[in-house]
């Protein structure tokens, strides 16, 4: 088996000298060893994945490659020569480009203005528009240089970042979780671009925890776990399941959701809810109806941008219709109640965006516990916050949901994405709400944390609560939900029983009137997996 190569020297494995190699790279943050003695090599033109859970050390490692951090021990070699990359400017000058997970673009400026700002001072900026148009067309990702960023989709914004890197003719392109923000068809387009780049000799370092994508796109993968390189594998010879095992370190366990439960009483109901579009990017909701019962997990599938965030804001009460009798919990009409009023009726919510919506990065975990817990008993007495209570609350959440944190009550921003997500989901589940409504509960979260969160939601349902889970991850929906509805262009399909539906059917519902999508469904590896599961 090709997997067992933990201490394999990367230099031996290839004939030519690698483009970039790391030898014994170690990085510590205080007591935490983020990277320990990592050997690594990537060849020119190679599509190489770095795979690992959140907190496995992926980000630390690429930050050292991009000059944002310096290794404490070990060294890097670039084209066979020993180098110290002291900052990103130097990395870019060497030919290393990086596209971050979160883009840094000015929304009010045009594509060409944004790119001009990011280019080094000595880069010739005459005819930049022409250059951008030519470069983007060359890779089949056409961009209008004069478009304003605010008008572009997330996928198009990512292209701007990619083209910005390409203009500097990189020989190594680092992509940090590039597909987490993309729709399936945008992902396919991105992969075409990356394949083309690799063919032209540009190596691509692809950071991801989506194993099917890793398998689909890359030829080799370096797997990190707990800061240590556990394996370097050829992805073609390794199954997704083997990759997952290497990454998590134990057998991945599928959840055995109790699909044959009895139907309890209806706990949350939406009747004919519509919401107009308030801005140019809003998706109007059209006559949405749904019911969820005690013990039931209702999965709402759909491709991003089909009204998920609009639906979530209506379900949580952040947006309210100006009519009664649209949303009920049991027999109570809650259409006009805001989040506080709905929480008082034992409902709980976890919106999609962790940073600045479900949690405040600049505040501590105990303050973040206060965010949705201030109306709990004893937390606020006569307007005065009882900090011992909020701290106890935060500690309880962290303990029960295995939130790994650097200190007792750290700022939310100091937690990794997966741990913060466990915290915001745990914060709501710990209250044992009657109804839990979550959006993208495992977005950008590593496998172990995702599994943990799904288990917690399944447990909650087993205890008699109802769960509504809006998710783009079909696999996740098939894994734990008892019933499924599909949100497409602001319309919700009928609610179907998971045991009686195939992934293919769901795929068709998601793709309805999205011609491009339905034409490409067969290319999406994720959907294939789901189909297998759905059929079994």
């Amino acid at each position, binding site marked *: 088996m090709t997997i067992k190569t933990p201490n394999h020297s990367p230099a031996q494995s290839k004939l030519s000298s690698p483009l970039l190699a790391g030898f014994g790279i170690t990085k510590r943050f205080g007591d935490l060893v983020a990277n320990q003695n990592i050997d690594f090599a990537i060849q020119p033109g190679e599509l190489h994945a770095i795979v690992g859970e959140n907190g496995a050390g992926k980000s630390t490692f690429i930050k050292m490659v991009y000059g944002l951090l310096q290794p404490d021990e070990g060294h890097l070699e670039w084209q066979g020569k020993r180098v110290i990359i002291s900052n990103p400017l130097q990395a870019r000058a060497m030919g290393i480009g990086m596209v971050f997970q979160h883009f840094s673009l000015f929304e009010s400026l045009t594509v060409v203005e944004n790119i001009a700002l990011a280019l080094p001072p000595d880069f010739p900026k005459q005819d930049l528009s022409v250059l951008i148009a030519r470069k983007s067309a060359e890779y089949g990702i056409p961009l209008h240089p004069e478009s304003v960023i605010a008008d572009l989709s997330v996928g198009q914004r990512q292209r701007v970042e990619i083209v910005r890197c390409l203009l500097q003719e990189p020989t190594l392109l680092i992509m940090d979780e590039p597909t987490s923000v993309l729709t399936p068809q945008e992902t396919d387009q991105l992969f075409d671009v990356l394949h083309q780049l690799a063919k032209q000799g540009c190596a691509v370092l692809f950071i991801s925890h989506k194993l099917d994508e890793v398998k689909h796109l890359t030829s080799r993968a370096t797997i990190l776990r707990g800061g240590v390189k556990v394996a370097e594998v050829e992805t073609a010879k390794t199954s997704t399941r083997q990759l997952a095992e290497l990454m998590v370190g134990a057998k991945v366990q599928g959840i055995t959701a109790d699909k044959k439960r009895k139907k309890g009483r209806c706990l949350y109901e939406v009747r004919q809810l519509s919401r107009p579009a308030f801005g140019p990017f809003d998706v109007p909701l059209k006559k949405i109806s749904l019911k969820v019962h005690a013990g039931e997990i209702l999965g709402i599938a759909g491709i991003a941008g089909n009204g998920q965030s609009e639906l979530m804001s209506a379900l949580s009460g952040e947006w309210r219709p100006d009519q009664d009798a649209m949303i009920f919990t049991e027999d109570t009409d809650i259409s006009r109640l805001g989040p506080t009023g709905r929480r008082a009726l034992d409902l709980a919510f976890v919106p999609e965006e962790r940073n600045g919506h479900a949690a405040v990065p600049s505040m501590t975990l105990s303050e973040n516990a206060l*965010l949705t817990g201030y109306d709990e008993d004893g937390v606020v007495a006569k307007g005065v916050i009882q900090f011992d209570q909020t701290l106890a609350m935060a500690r309880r959440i962290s303990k029960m949901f295995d939130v790994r944190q650097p200190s007792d009550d750290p700022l939310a921003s100091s937690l990794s994405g997966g741990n913060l997500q466990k915290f915001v989901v745990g914060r709501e589940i710990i209250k044992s709400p009657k109804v839990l409504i979550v959006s993208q509960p495992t977005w950008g979260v590593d496998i172990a944390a995702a599994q943990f969160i799904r288990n917690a939601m399944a447990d909650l349902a087993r205890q008699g609560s109802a769960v509504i889970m809006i998710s783009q991850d079909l696999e996740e929906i098939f894994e734990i939900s008892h019933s499924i509805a599909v949100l497409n262009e602001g319309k919700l399909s009928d609610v179907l029983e998971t045991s009686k539906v195939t992934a293919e059917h769901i795929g068709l519902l998601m793709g309805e009137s999205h011609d491009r999508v339905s034409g490409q469904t067969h290319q999406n590896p994720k959907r294939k997996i789901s189909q297998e599961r759905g059929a079994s």
Partner: protein
Amino acid sequence: MIILQPRKHVSLRLTIAVPVLSVLVTLALGGVIFALLGYNPLQALYEFFIAPLARPDQIGNLFVKACPLIIIGTGLIFCYRANVWNIGAEGQLILGAMGAGWVALSFPEAESRFLILAMAVMAMVGGALWGLIPAILKIRFKTNEILVSLMLTYIAALLVDWVVRGPWRDPMAFGFPLTRTYPDAGLISRMPLPGIGYLGQLHWGVLVAFVVALAGWFYLSRMLGGFQIKLMGDAPRAGKFAGFHQGWVTIMVMMISGALAGLAGMIEVSANIGMLQPHISFGYGFTAIIVAFLARLNPMAAIAAGLVVALAELGGDAAQISMNIPKVVTGIFKGILLFMLLAGETLTRYQIIWIGRSQASTTTAKTKG
């Protein structure tokens, strides 16, 4: 390229050394400027820093000067924490003084202690209402509160000018634009200190300023309302998700800061002037903005910040009077002082990292020993 990077660890030595260094740099720079302009630098610096504190009564006066700055600064901290930019405290101060003046002039024969309380309440109502206008316009029409509150300041100044020349003018004032003097019950008396007695013009309003700063600190750091304000400032979406209303928070902070500015206006008039006149504030509403930021948006620190800024103000006056240094020069010197303090404060928390251009274009291939 210059990058400001937050320091991971701020040592106590640095915290103490930096403000001292800031003052020393200010002294050196100021000395050079005074010398270049032909003034004796040592004497000028003495007038600025030592003379205002030379006698005990002057220390009392320093507190009197700091009093409105601390009160207004505390109110502004509420706004700025909520990401609401109230620049119009000066106008809210004037409206507060007018509200209090209306009560005092309506009861010229009053002897009850309740008069001063009623004046304080009306002052706070007046200031709060003046602060409410930009808040409502912001919520309803998405106007910019910076512009609206600033423009309302000029309206307020013209309003007080009009009332003291017109309806409220004292007929016995020989045509001067002044109102009647307030009744004694509407004045704030000097505050005796135990064991010391009266200290300059030190009055009871100073005590109010301390109480306001303390209460403001408690509210912002310990109460749910304060949490709401910080939440709306830091992450409005999370605030909405928590179930708070951005509009209400905007109204609340604008009214709180307006009320406090109004209170400061009432104290200023009742303690120091005793009547309304066209000019009742020396720009306290604007100077307090500096106090709020110098205090790093912490009401407790606003006490110290208010005293520092007051010292610079008094020192500037002293230098103008005793050495005939023009007002613009003392203004420059005050500017240098505040700049140095703010810069020092920033550098305590952040470190500067230089990234040279040469580093960027060449690959430094070094071998690690």
